Structure formats: structure tokens, C-alpha cells
């Protein structure tokens, strides 16, 4: 969808035959792949310049990513105010044909004369007759039925009795769960080593705090993880003093040794590797913390020896 195809660009240069000598039978239509803000603007410019434009997008509607934004950088302009006139113009322009819910399958030819094969996905709607009234959407009986992906449906572990006891006790002892949600989630996280979905759902059901709020907190703070974590957590300090003393090298060496990236867990579930913003042991830089133990003046060549202790 995002493809800003240089191939189509070259057909839009408009300088007949200048790119490839001998091409004289130039066809006067242009395919713009991707109908984000730049695709729409390109289509409008071309259409106003007299070309017939096919505006293609893999999504059912044009508009792309910008329609999801509130404001744009750096001027803080309202995104929809910028783009909605263009949406309307694209939809109504006589020289623009929208090809939505479609993908480019094949491109042949040379600049100035392309044959493009497009696969249109089934919309099950007759576009010629549809007026976009929206009645079918509001009237659809299964619109609000949530259909989770198959694997999510399979993976729905039940709360064990221990888990349930723990959470119940936690909630009982905390008079103001909503105000202390952070602390509650910290306790859950410490107990389960991460925040499992089914436990969060249970907390949500028991307290009435929306699951979405817990997820927003869990994804905002670094201390929480929605993925299972390893037995030991290796935190490489990325404070300034550690950076100056080469902690970046420690991190890349650890990634090599453990064969995992930052924030990931080894396949055997033993180590989780993460960077941390200053553990306050700057005088011992570079520092690495494994669980609660801090190692100072760590050398790249000493890492394996440290790991062996765990």
C-alpha cells in the first residue's frame, strides 16, 4: 500500500520519450500506487494536468495513514482539515478513477508505456449502484460480534486457583485500586513475571476498570511487559556515564552471545535482555544489572563469565 513506485513516477514525468529513446506511443493515463496524502496529491496534480489517473490502494478506502492522525508535525495543523478536501476532490474528479481494495500483481513495459496487472479483492458490493448511504453497516446483525483471531481463541489459559487467590488478596488489601492501579499492576507483574492477558481480564472484571486502561498503562511504562519474560532479566545501563564508557558495545555483544535483540527473551526462557535508563551506579560505569545484582566496570570480554553465574 505504501509503495511509492518509482516506475509509475517515471510515467508521470510527462516529457515524452525523454527517458527511453524510441518510445513514442505514450499512453495518457497514470497509475498512482498508494492513496495516502502524497498519493492523493499526486493524483490530483496529474488529473488537473490533464492525465487520466488510476488511484490504487490496498485498503477499502483512500486516505492512508494521515486519516488516523490528530495533528501533523511541525505546525500542529489538524490532519483531517488538511486532507478531507483532497479526499472529496479525489472522489469526485472526473479524471480520477479509484481502484480500492486492490493490489498490483505485475508490472510490464518501459517508462511511458506500462501494462499493470491489478488484483481487485472481492467487495461484494456493486460499486456502480452503491450510494454510500451506510445503511448496510448500521443494519448488519453481526457487526458488533467480536471475532478474535483463531490462535487467540485457542490460547485462553484459565486462571489457576493460586493466581486467583493472589489477585483476590491483592484487590482485597488495596482499598483504592483505581488510584493505585500502577502499584496493583506492579504486584501482578512481579508475581507472574509479566502481565498475562487472562489475569488482567480477571482484574478488570473484578474491579470494573476497563481492560483498555490497563493495557494503556502496561504499554506506557517500561516496567511492564505483555510478553512472558525470562527467568533472569539482564539490564544494560544506558546512562550517560555508561554510554561514555562503552555500554553500547556491551549491549551488542550480549545480543550476539544470547542471539536475541533488545527487549527479547532467549528461546530457553532463561534470559531477557533489556536496556535501562541509568541505574544510578554511574561511578561504576559501565554497569550491568542481572535481576537484583549489579556488576560494575564490566568489560566486553568479561560478559560470558558473568552470564555463566546464572
Amino acid at each position, binding site marked *: 500500500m505504501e509503495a511509492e513506485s518509482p516506475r509509475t513516477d517515471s510515467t508521470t514525468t510527462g516529457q515524452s520519450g525523454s527517458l527511453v529513446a524510441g518510445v513514442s506511443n505514450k499512453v495518457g493515463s497514470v497509475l498512482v500506487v498508494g492513496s495516502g496524502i502524497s498519493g492523493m496529491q499526486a493524483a490530483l496534480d496529474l488529473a488537473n494536468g490533464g492525465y487520466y489517473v488510476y488511484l490504487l490502494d490496498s485498503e477499502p478506502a483512500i486516505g492512508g495513514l494521515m486519516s488516523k492522525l490528530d495533528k501533523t508535525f511541525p505546525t500542529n495543523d489538524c490532519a483531517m482539515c488538511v486532507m478531507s478536501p483532497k479526499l472529496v476532490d479525489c472522489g469526485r474528479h472526473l479524471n480520477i478513477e479509484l481502484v480500492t481494495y486492490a493490489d498490483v500483481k505485475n508490472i510490464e513495459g518501459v517508462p511511458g508505456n506500462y501494462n499493470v496487472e491489478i488484483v481487485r479483492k472481492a467487495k461484494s458490493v456493486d460499486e456502480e449502484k452503491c450510494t454510500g448511504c451506510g445503511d448496510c453497516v448500521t443494519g448488519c446483525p453481526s457487526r458488533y460480534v467480536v471475532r478474535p483471531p483463531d490462535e487467540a481463541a485457542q490460547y485462553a489459559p484459565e486462571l489457576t486457583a493460586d493466581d486467583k487467590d493472589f489477585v483476590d488478596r491483592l484487590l482485597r488489601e488495596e482499598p483504592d485500586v483505581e488510584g493505585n492501579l*500502577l502499584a496493583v499492576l506492579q504486584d501482578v507483574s512481579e508475581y507472574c513475571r509479566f502481565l498475562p492477558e487472562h489475569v488482567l481480564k480477571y482484574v478488570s472484571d473484578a474491579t470494573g476498570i476497563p481492560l483498555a486502561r490497563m493495557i494503556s*498503562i502496561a504499554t506506557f511504562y517500561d*516496567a511492564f511487559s505483555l510478553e512472558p519474560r525470562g527467568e533472569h532479566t539482564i539490564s544494560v545501563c544506558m546512562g550517560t*556515564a555508561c*554510554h561514555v564508557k562503552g555500554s553500547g*558495545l556491551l549491549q551488542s555483544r550480549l545480543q550476539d552471545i544470547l542471539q536475541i535483540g533488545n527487549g527479547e527473551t532467549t528461546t530457553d526462557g532463561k534470559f531477557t535482555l533489556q536496556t*535501562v*535508563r541509568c541505574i*544510578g551506579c*554511574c561511578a561504576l560505569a559501565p554497569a550491568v544489572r542481572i535481576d537484583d545484582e549489579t556488576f560494575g566496570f564490566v568489560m566486553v570480554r568479561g560478559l560470558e563469565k558473568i552470564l555463566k553465574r546464572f
Partner: protein
Amino acid sequence: MARINTQAEFERVAKEAAGRYWGRGLTVRVGMASCGLAAGANALYDVAAERVKGNGNGLSLSRVGCRGSCVVEPMVDVVSPDFHLTFGNVTKAGLESIIDAAQANDFSSFEDADAVWQERDAPRTDGTLYTTRRGTHAQIPDISAIPFYAPQRKIVTRNCGLIDPFDIEESLARDGYAALVKVLTENDPEGVIETVLASGLRGRGGAGFPTGRKWALTREAAGDEKYVFVNADEGDPGAFMDRSVLESDPHAVLEGLAIGAFAIGASEGIVYVRAEYPLAVQTLRNAIVQAREYGFLGENILGTSFSFDVSIRIGAGAFVCGEETALIASAEGRVGEPRPRPPYPAQSGYKGAPTVINNVKTWSAVAPIILNGAEWFAEVGTESSKGTAVFCVTGTIKNTGLVEVPMGMTLREIIYDVGGGPERAGSEIKAVQTGGPSGGCLPKDQFDLAVDYEKLTEAGSMMGSGGMIVVDDRTCMVSLAKFFLNFTMDESCGKCTPCREGTRRMHDLLEKITSGEGTEEDIAFLEELASYVKDTSLCGLGATAPNPVLSTLKYFRDEYDAHIRERRCPAGECEALISFRVVPDKCTVCGACAKVCPVNAVVEAGKAPPTIDQDACTRCRTCFEVCPSDAILIE
């Protein structure tokens, strides 16, 4: 221990505590703050504990916090009513002989040890009550002869490393809670605010807002419920003084907090601590329990109508929560995103009530000001910045550690006198970075700058929370600026666009420059972006994020130019622009480099010097670090 209900009771308890503290027989104190523990203080404590159990001979043992001289950790103090000696870089065997010598009262064999000195600490009460410790060991230097300590003036860190943070009695022995008792006895909240205002104390979190004014605004604000907060979400990389204070002297903070609460009329206090500081949380929890037990927290403190209690909130790893409005949001159990000010927390803070938020160091400085008077505090420092500044001096410097110096000291004095100059012989200190990711880098021709809030800001940096990172010629300033941008980019909460997108774009540009693909236009664009981000961001995080870039562009333009025009990194740090080579003339063919290379990029050639396979080399520097004859060249 029963609650203390009157001033007379307090004086009796404090006097008894002081008697025990100053009169205690031969005691080994092991420095067991985080730095000490990482350096192996636990093992030392065990050694000393064995001795106490075995042929103790009246020997006792206690754990203390951090003395600030992190570079010589682990540290052990040996104290008796007559002397107080401090030993650094102590080994297990060393500790045995220290205890032997202390029991024999003969330290003649310690003449040559470099990290030994005698303390001059003495009780405040004019020396008549207990003996003032005299140096009885002439061969051991006095603390005033140690360059690291001589220029320091300890107010915030007055008790750090001298008391057991888990024992309120030791705090009481050193004037703990005396100021709170004084304030409650005088019962004049406005007077407290006036004293703090007159002392010129400014917020030690970085922005430097006058503390007294903040308190006065909160006191005047309408509302029955008011709150006081300790901001201990010390997120700045390179700053660890708040951790140190909390780990070493939590009562100083609690006492200040209680005084502040009394002055503004609050009955609830909250300490917001980073989750990365588990020991600080532990000391604080214990301190709160003890303070309640003694009646310094709770209902009707000291028999007055003033009731006040403190709870702890633990952060969850978000840097932006150090910003006061984000901190409040986080304490309320929400996502820690800042909001536009005004209204300031003084008008509408925690749960919409007037709230004072001060840094750990600010709270810790309150009690001595009350006890000794505003003039005593205002005597130290410069015209606009009174008192002392606490810095964490780290990086490529000899004496890394925590220092508390009078405001107005020059950077040169801090770096060369206190800090002892460059860590590696022959290298040169190129710059100092202050103020964390919000601050800037100052070059060596600015080292005569007197340190205070205004001067640092004028020079393009800032006081910040007090991290001071010294870098030498092996650090690339472009890469350092990129490091800070990476930090702010990562820690931006994403609420406002300039900060979320702008820091990312600036980071991309720096990435381009450090990988050798930068152009002249990139610098102009970088400057333009910086001004946008600075002017339009919602909170301090975004507004100060461009500072590291702007200050390095201002003072280290030549390094940017070298990256762009010559595709060269002068400091030899940017991986894309350097390669390693063996200098055959210097190489002794010892094989050390080949042995340590993690990717086998060092190709050995029998008796001839090895070569480095540039394709395999990951530029991890290990060979460079291990080479005993400096035969590996970065170019």
C-alpha cells in the same frame, strides 16, 4: 519505643541517642549503599560480622550509606570516641588487618595507603558533652588534605555515610527531627515559609524555582486538602544523588517533608520513587515505620494538632514522570503524561488539590535551614543561587563520585581539584555535560564558568538534577548528542507532536551524520527542527530536548564538519567511520588481541604482527582495550 509527645521528651531521647552514637566503642562501619554493594561491601560486612562474633573484644558493626567517593568503594570507617578513620578500596584481607590495627590502636603500617584519611566529625553541641575526635594518628592525612573532600560543604548530604539509614536513633544523634520539633514548638507556619524564602533555597530538581515562593503559593491556594510530594523519580542518566540521599539518610527527607507539610497545611505526603532504586525504597519504608513509631509521623505529632503521614509510590520506568504534572498523573494511577501548565500544581495538583512537589535534595536541605537560620544558608553560594550544589561527577575522570560544593565554584575546580582531572594519563578532558538530556555540553574554554542556575543556562546548558559527565578526547560529541536524542526520543510520552516526531527526525539526522552520509543542509535543517521542538513542545522534556544538539553545534562545530566534509570521526567512536589497524612497529606479537576477539577478526601471521580482517571486524574495541603496547590504531 514509645511515642514522643513533648519537646522535653524529644530532647531527652535525642540526647540519649547522641550519647550512644558519639560514645560508642570501636565500631566498623561498612558503606552499603548501591555503589558499595556493587563493589562487594556485602562480603566485607560478613568478614566484620565474623570478627564481632569471634574475638570481638567489644567491637561492634554497623552499615552506613554512601560517602560519595564512589571510586574507592567499598569503603569502611573505623570509629571510636577518639578517632574516625576512613578506608577506601578495602579488600577482605585488608579489613582483617584494619580491624587488627584498630584494636591495637596502631595504624603505623597504613602510612602508604592512598585511600585513607581521618574524619573531623564532631557533635554540634559545642564539644563539652562528648569528646571531639582528634587525629591521634599523625601519619594518616586529615580529611582536609584530601582534594576530593577539602572544598566540599555538606548540607544536603550532611549525614550520608555517617549514620545507619535503618536506625532512626543515629539520625536523632545528628540533629534529626530537631528542626521539626522546633517548628512545631514555635507553631508559626508563615515564619517557616519566610525563613525558607529568606534562605534563597531554590528547587534542586533543575529548574530552580524558589522553594519558599512555591510553598507560599500553595499555602495561599484555596482548598482543605493539600499535599506534599517528594520527587525521587531521578531519571537523568548520570545523576544518582537522590538515590544516594535516600539510601543513606532517608530521615532528612522525611523531616523536610513534614516541615513543608506543616508550613503549607498538608496532612498527607507522597514519595514517588523510581522502581530502579530498590534499596532506596527499602530504606524509606523502614524510615517511615520508625518515624511513625517515634511519633514524628501520624496523628497529633508532638502533642500538637498537626497530623501528617507519608506513603510511597513506586514508578514504573518512565522518565517523563519526573515532570511534575506527569508525576501527579502517575501517582493517581494513570498514564504518566504531562499536561499544560497553568494551572500549576500549587493551585491544582494531586486529586485537584494544591500540591507542593520538591526534589529529594530540596527537602533534605530544609531541616538545616530551619535549625541554623536563613543567613547561615544564604552565606554560601552566589548572588542568585544560594547554598550548595550536589553533583554526580562521572565519566572519564579520576575521582568519580558524589560531591556537594558551594554554588559558584568553577567547573575547573570541580573537575580538576575535586575530580582529580582526567582518568587516563595523557588524555585531555574535552568537555563536560551537565543537566542530563535537558542540558548541554560545555567545552574546556568554558571551564572557568562559576556554577549556578543562571550562568549554566546562559552558556547553553543547565543545572538540571546535577549529573556532571566528563568526557575526554575519545568521546565523539556528535555521537553524544545522538545518545541524548535517542534517550529523549525513547522517553517522549508521545502526547505532543513536536516532541514525539521532532526528536525522532533530529535523531535520524544525527544518525545520518554519524554514519558518514551527512550533508551541510542537514545541519541547517537540524537547527531549524531544534527551534521548532524547543518552542512548541508541551512540557520540559521536549522543550529542552534539543539542548544537547544546540550546545554541541555551538561549541563543537568542527566535529560535525569533520563527519560531514571529511567523513571522519575525530574521536574514533562512530563505527561507520573508523577502522582498526595493527601498527607493526609497536606490536610485540603477544597474541592478546587474537585471543579476545569475539568474531575472530584478528588474523594471526605466525611471528609477524597480525592483521585485522575489516569485513569480519565488528569494531567492538576489545582488541584496542587489551593491547598492552598500544599497537592497535583507530583511524
